[in-house]
């Protein structure tokens, strides 16, 4: 059996204090095996992004432990969390978060310059089908292309895990499918664990494992035995 990329034990996240406190996560226990595509599904405010942020090293749990492989993220210092993000984690966001002042290639180089074992920037951009547009600035690229640059930037460091928060949220169906295909390629070719947060239920069909969130907790975990390709998904 594959080992787990992530294990969480009783993760709780509370925003605010006293009467105005909001419980975003209420004691979540979860295992995410290595090399899977996992979709986190649920309505807004169900806690899926909060969990992603905690295991991605962007935020800290109020209570509970989150393990990356065998290391406890809850016990890491800020420096160690930065190191963890730099060496192991790739992020893809709904609004791409590219540096507008850098070209596509330079946006990727931003990461490869500091990563431990990066791939060639052009190779990463080739993976996402942007070989021809490496010298374009974000303002010269469409939304889908910008998102693919963001993915190239995330995968160029050869990440252990790829976090995608609503990666297709701002894209049309054709572009969205292309982006999902890239994510699937990354999973297959690099063996990276891919976590996708979405509220588009149809995308669950391409996942190895679907985790349904509701009210700050996990409602159910479904393991897909037959996965669909992005082209086969209803959009």
């Amino acid at each position, binding site marked *: 059996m594959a080992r787990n990329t992530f294990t969480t034990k009783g993760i709780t996240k509370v925003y605010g204090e006293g009467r105005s406190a909001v419980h975003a996560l209420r004691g979540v226990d979860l295992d995410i095996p290595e090399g899977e595509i996992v979709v986190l599904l649920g309505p807004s405010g169900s806690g899926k992004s909060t969990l992603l942020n905690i295991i991605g090293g962007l935020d800290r749990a109020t209570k509970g432990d989150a393990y990356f492989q065998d290391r406890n993220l809850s016990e890491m210092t800020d420096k160690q969390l930065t190191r963890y993000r730099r060496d192991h984690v790739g992020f893809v966001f709904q609004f791409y978060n590219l540096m507008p002042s850098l070209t596509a290639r330079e946006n990727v180089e*931003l990461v490869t310059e500091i990563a431990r074992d990066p791939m060639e920037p052009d190779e990463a951009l080739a993976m996402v089908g942007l070989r021809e547009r490496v010298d374009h600035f974000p303002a010269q690229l469409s939304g889908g292309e910008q998102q693919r640059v963001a993915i190239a930037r995330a995968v160029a460091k050869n990440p252990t895990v790829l976090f995608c928060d609503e990666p297709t949220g701002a894209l049309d169906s054709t572009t969205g499918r292309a982006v999902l295909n890239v994510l699937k390629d990354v999973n297959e070719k690099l063996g990276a664990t891919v976590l996708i947060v979405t509220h588009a239920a149809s995308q669950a069909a391409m996942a190895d494992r679907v985790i349904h969130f509701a009210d700050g907790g996990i409602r159910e975990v479904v393991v897909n035995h037959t996965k669909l390709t992005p082209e086969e998904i209803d959009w």
Partner: protein
Amino acid sequence: MAIGMVIAVGVGMLVMMTGLVTSLNETRAAYYERYRLAEVFAPVTRAPDRMETRLAAIDGVSAVEPRVVGAALIDVADFDLPVQAQAVSLPDFRKPRLNDVFLTDGRMIDSDHTDEILLLEAFAQAHDIRPGDRIDATMNGARRSFQVVGLAQAPEFLYTTAPGELIPDDARFGVIWMSRSALAAAYDMDGAFNEALLSLSRGANEAAVMAAVDRILDPYGGTGAYPLADQASNQLVSEEISGLEAAAVGVPPIFLAVAAFLLYIVINRMVQSEREEIGLMKAFGYTNGEVGAHYFKLVLAIAFGGALAGCLMGIAGGRALIQVYVAYFKFPFLVFQLDPASFVTGVSVSILSASAGGLLVLRSVFALTPAAAMRAPAPADYSRTGAIGHTLNRFLDQPSRMVLRRITRQPARMAGAMIGIACGMALSVSMITIYAGFDRTIDLTFNVIDRSDVTVTFTHARSDATIFNLRRMKGVTFVEPVRHVPAVLRNGLATHRGVVSGLPPDARLSRALDSDLADIPLKNVGIVLSTALATKLSIRPGDTLTVEVREGRQPVLQIPVTAVAESLLGSPSYMDLDTLNRALREPNRVSGAYLSIDEAHATDIYAALQDMPTVAGVSLKSQAEVAFETLMNTGAGAIRYVMGAIAFVITFGIVYNAARIAYAERSRDLASLRVIGFTKGEAAFVLLGELAIVTLVALPIGSVLGYYLSFGIAAGFSSELYQIPAIFDPASYGFAAMVVLGAGVASGWLVKRDIDRADLVSALKTRE
């Protein structure tokens, strides 16, 4: 809130300073009026009393008061040297029609007792003399003992300056009032007067009256009537008040401009972050005007609130500060008056400047279409800056490229920040330059131009044999004669009432120096004017100056100007001593001398000088220097410290503001960098690198701006009494650069702290 405070400080200063100036002017006017200060002063050698009626008959004269004045020396316990004083007569058995005194302690003199005197309060306090004390004074060569019966103030002696000196000093010049009959006896003025005071009726022609007075007094040795505006004390008070006025006009606009700029930035940020709301309101059918009005109201609220707070601060500050100035000017009472115009100006200027900032922003509100407003803005277009990347590719990592591209893509915005910081640098440079200028004035005046230890003034022009007597004194190492001649210098309409100094050709102790501090040879013919005087008379070397001598035969001379001399104190003019004496047809005369002495014999020398009947006054350079420093540090000159502090605060404010804006614009990029694994330091580099480059480029620009600003500020601080040069010294620039860099480092540190604390998750959620 911070912006409101900046507006408040600007408006507060405006209200306070104009209120202060108005109150001082009103108080001075009320004081002059209540104690009937004369409007025309007419000194004369000796005019018979019957001339009084002829003076009173002049058309436009409303009152005449003849009086006797004379030079005196007062012995005081705490000084080695007797102190110079002016003795002034008060009419027997009646109040003076003009130039009354304000009794602050004791009682008025009784004309039946010829030894009773009033003493100037400031002088008495400086020497701890009280009513009931006795003092010894020398008048007209005779030493007498007097009973001090009261202390008094008078509007004509707000500032007191010993004859032949420029710097007012309470301790070193006194005023004695005594009965007319007693003083006339002391100065051989029975049945005569040597100064006429005149007041004018409404609408009188001052110049015509003075000409008539001169005609009447001329046969009796009249040396020329002069108006109140030329009266020494009044002149100094006017200088001080106009110094404050200049500050009142100059400083507040700087604050208001900074406030308008800040307001523009903040509202602009706000509109950017609320573009969704703006789009929504527009989508609901609000017009541009309605949406704009919403933001405009905010601008107005800040401006109005700030202005209101400023008015209150100004009133409170003005009330506090006026007390200080009333004491400083020795006004016996206070007319506190606010200038209502300053409120109107303050409020309207702050609202106008804020609106100007606000309107620029509103343009961008109007430009937003509902649909565009509700979409996230497209990433900024950097495609035109790509070229830099190619050329520098090999040398720069990505973060450095981000810094460079941002600077080259938005040159206007960067130039704004750069100019802002450069202005801060310029302010700092010029203030430090001014500080150096004040030091330079003191140094040049007391160590370079005047190298004597002691200045001796004779009662009147004497034979130069007196100089030999001085040379023979034990401990006197060098004696240099001088002849000061009162004169009116005239070039066309420009006139100056002052003194022409005749110096020996090889002068060593008191010299005329050019701008390189080299001796100017005093040629046989010709006069050398100080720069301030040449400017005032708008005359250049080669031109001919009219010199109306006010002594002896009172000849009117036409003398060519041969050179312009560097002088930072007063407005001196120099001639060759022998040439001057020849022109006056009074050969071999001197009116004073500069002495170098051996400090070990100082006490003996002072004692010997005191016993010389021909000596009217002795002044020590060391005391004059202290008095000068005191003057520059307490009056209008003291404002330089306030302005310096303000300059540094503004500098820091601009730099910090530039850093904050850069951070606000880039917080999302910085968060993204942090997320993809950049450390706090690496992420901060992108921002602080930009700040560093902008600051470094701003330094030379600011230095150049500061160079020019220095001249303006130096001119503002210069007065008729002293000039402040703009001194350019690398240390000033170095120090100013340190101030700006210090502000940069502090701002960088403050912003870095915010970068470190930034919540990554929320930073990512906010769209541009």
